[in-house]
């Protein structure tokens, strides 16, 4: 599949979609959205890129194999739950910063949990899709 229109469109769409996915991730606490949907949107962005430019280019773009995203995300989610335990609270107690950060707003441990989910979802989706499409190409 070599289409100039798709390639050109992807050049603009990929960063837009990735930004959008982060936006969805961050707004999740107040409005519709969250780590899961955000992760899916980001995955779609990369899938689109792989359609336009081929799998190898996308993999190069990602730098690391998608399966290596999974443990990172899992660890982040897990650690966000462990964090309150240092303060003597139970696992996964919500902890919040006292001052809101600019642009992002109030930051809490749930945010890092959601970011972890976001990364795991990207890793899982791309691992499954890329593995299948690779094995078909062979």
């Amino acid at each position, binding site marked *: 599949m070599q289409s100039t229109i798709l390639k050109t469109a992807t050049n603009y769409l990929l960063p837009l979609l990735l930004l959008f996915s982060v936006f*969805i991730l961050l707004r*999740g*606490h*107040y*409005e*519709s*959205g*969250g*780590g*899961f*949907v955000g992760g*899916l*949107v980001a*995955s*779609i962005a990369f*899938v689109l890129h792989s359609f336009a430019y081929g799998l190898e280019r996308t993999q190069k773009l990602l730098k690391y194999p998608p*399966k290596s995203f*999974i443990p990172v*995300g*899992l660890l982040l*989610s*897990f650690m966000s*739950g462990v964090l309150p335990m240092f303060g003597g609270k139970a*696992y*996964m107690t*919500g902890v*919040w910063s006292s001052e809101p950060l600019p642009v992002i707003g*109030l930051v*809490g441990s*749930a945010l890092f*949990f*959601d970011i*972890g*989910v976001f990364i*795991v*979802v990207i*890793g*899982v*989706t791309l*691992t*499954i*899709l890329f*593995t*299948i*499409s*690779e*094995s*078909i190409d062979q």
Partner: protein
Amino acid sequence: MILAVLSGFLAALILAFSGKLFRGRLSVLLGLLPLSIFNYFLYFFPDISAGKVITFSYRWIPSLGINLDFRLDGLSMLFVMLITGIGALIYFYAASYLEGHKFLDRFYAYLSLFMGSMLGLVLADNTLLIFIFWELTSISSFFLIGFNNDNAESRKSALMALAITGCGGFFLLASFVLMGIATQTYSIGQMLAAPGFLKEQPAYELVLFFLFVGSFSKSAQFPFHFWLPGAMKAPTPVSAYLHSATMVKAGIYLLARFSPLLGDHLLWTNTLMITGGFTMLYAAAHSVFKKDLKSILAYSTISALGMLVFLIGIGTRYAIVAAAAFILVHALYKAGLFLITGIIDHEAGTRNIDKLGGLRKWFPLVALAGLLAALSSAGVPLTFGFIGKDLIYEATLHTQDFFRYTLTPLALITNILLLYAGFSTGIRPFAGSIPENLSKGPLHPSLSPLLWIPPLILGGLSIFFGLLPYVPDQLLVSHAASSIYGSYIFLPLKIWHGFNLTLLLSAVTIVAGAALYFLYRPATASAATQYWLQWFSPQHLTEWTGEKTRLFAYHYTKMLQNGYLRSYILTITVFLIGLIGYRFFSTVDLRVNTSGFTEIRFFEFVVFAITVIATITTVFTNSRLTAIVSMSIIGLSICLIYVYYGAPDLAMTQFTIDTLTVVLFVLVLYRLPQYLINSNRKMKLRDGLVAFSFGTLISLITLQALISPANKEISRFYADNAYLLAKGKNVVNVILVDFRGADTMVETMVLTIAALGVYSLLKLNVKPTDKD
């Protein structure tokens, strides 16, 4: 204390990582582990001698009532000394016996694991803890028995031992749970505070039954005895350790431990006397027909275990002291005989008693050790075995009239046969002249001291304890007996009891046994004559059941797990229809209430029409691609419905998932050939019927759910508290990341597992020859 108990596990862990260090000569150093534990426990002797009970407690799972509670009393002390003392000898012995073995480090890891489990078992004060350690001994002994894993026989016997002792473990757990329910505690110490309580409970019979099955399976009592001779496939040091002092004595330990709680009851006494009595005679008789040294030892071990069960069953003061003494006597001489057999096997290359003889000329010191062990097993005066045998006769003679005349001859015959077994293994290979097949001399002419010193120590101890019986009595036996009996027993061990009936019985044992030894040799073909009886033997029945279960599982799996996605979906759907349908139609009063419905709006009608058209297209199209696209149209229509009815989160997720699913489908199906007709009319009809019924069922449930009163309390809680507790305004998201965060965590793990599954299925290129 906890370090002493768990050091075996630690050692196994360290060996797993740094095993290479200990594969060579350094392996001797590992013997320091049991030796130091042995020394550690020596410090407790003064307290134990003063009749104290030492307890240690470490918090573990307090919410389940399981803590690492340890309790050291006389009985535990006896076993700890055997486990670590004989353990140390085995460690040193194995360093030379298995020298240069490829997996020597692994062997020591298993051995340490096993030793740690045994220590935990005899020290645990909590019944559930006992169960955990009990299962650990089963598993670690499985590794040890199957250590020669390139041998099919060896693997089979390891599996058999695990199956029998592992099943026994479940019975044991049942017994412990029943005890726990009845007494409201899992602590043995607390149960011992009210010893008569359990005997009056209605569950007593069941507790007893389960406990017996558990201990009999471990201690190789009839009809569970057959795993023990099979376990002789293990390397000889393992057999020596498992069958003289540890594994098989675990069942005995358990019976002894619960004797003050459950004993002194007709059911307890009779069951143990009959089972133990039968086992000891049956196994002793078997040992006489065997020619393999290890088989003889195996059956004589079963017989000795039967003797112990029998003595605990009698339960009088004499019998309990006899049992405590006999545990020690047997451990000393049996471990010695096993080790000697190992040396013979190692040097002569055979264990057949017909092909052995005159080995005293090769190894005079080993011959001496063999002689000492055989004399102790025979109960010749001035050995520790003599004292043990005396006590056994004292025990049977001190029973009531009827038992006195039946049990005494039973013990007499068993002892005569055991004497024969001891002589056959300890003396026969060393007596006479060297046969022709051995004329070339030993396989390893320079015998390592690591091999011959351990049996000599054991033999020496048998004599030492026999000459000075108050030493073992004061240190071990009297306190162990008191723990088993439940109150203090004063019955000192003596060399000389004067001229009485006991002495006469001992003399008869020795004379008759010696006569049997000199006059009888096992014939070659006595086993095949009773071939047809083999079918009913417990071993054959177990194997038969195992094989049939395997076959059943094979066919069952082949039918249900045939690898076709379509049949999985069919099975799941039909099962759901049956299950939900039955429940639905049998319990719910079907009503459809249309009064609450609103008018159908225009855009709703449009979405509905699109969905129907897309469904019909999906079902009847001839192109795969069209089918996929129409499927995704259905999904997107559902997204629209979510949006209309106020579930934007759901709609977003559904939308992205739908997109990715289509991509996935296209990736796979784009490469497949054109649409093929691969289902006939009948199959289409069947699938249609199933789909139609499932759809109808779901619709009915949905309609029913509309009129069922919903419990709004939970959703109100989340709505009210989302902002207050979790500072979030999107309730769905707050539930996902905060209230039910642990669920989400596990769900991400499920996703991970799915991804790993796909990845390994497609990336793992198994060559056809490697499959299996």
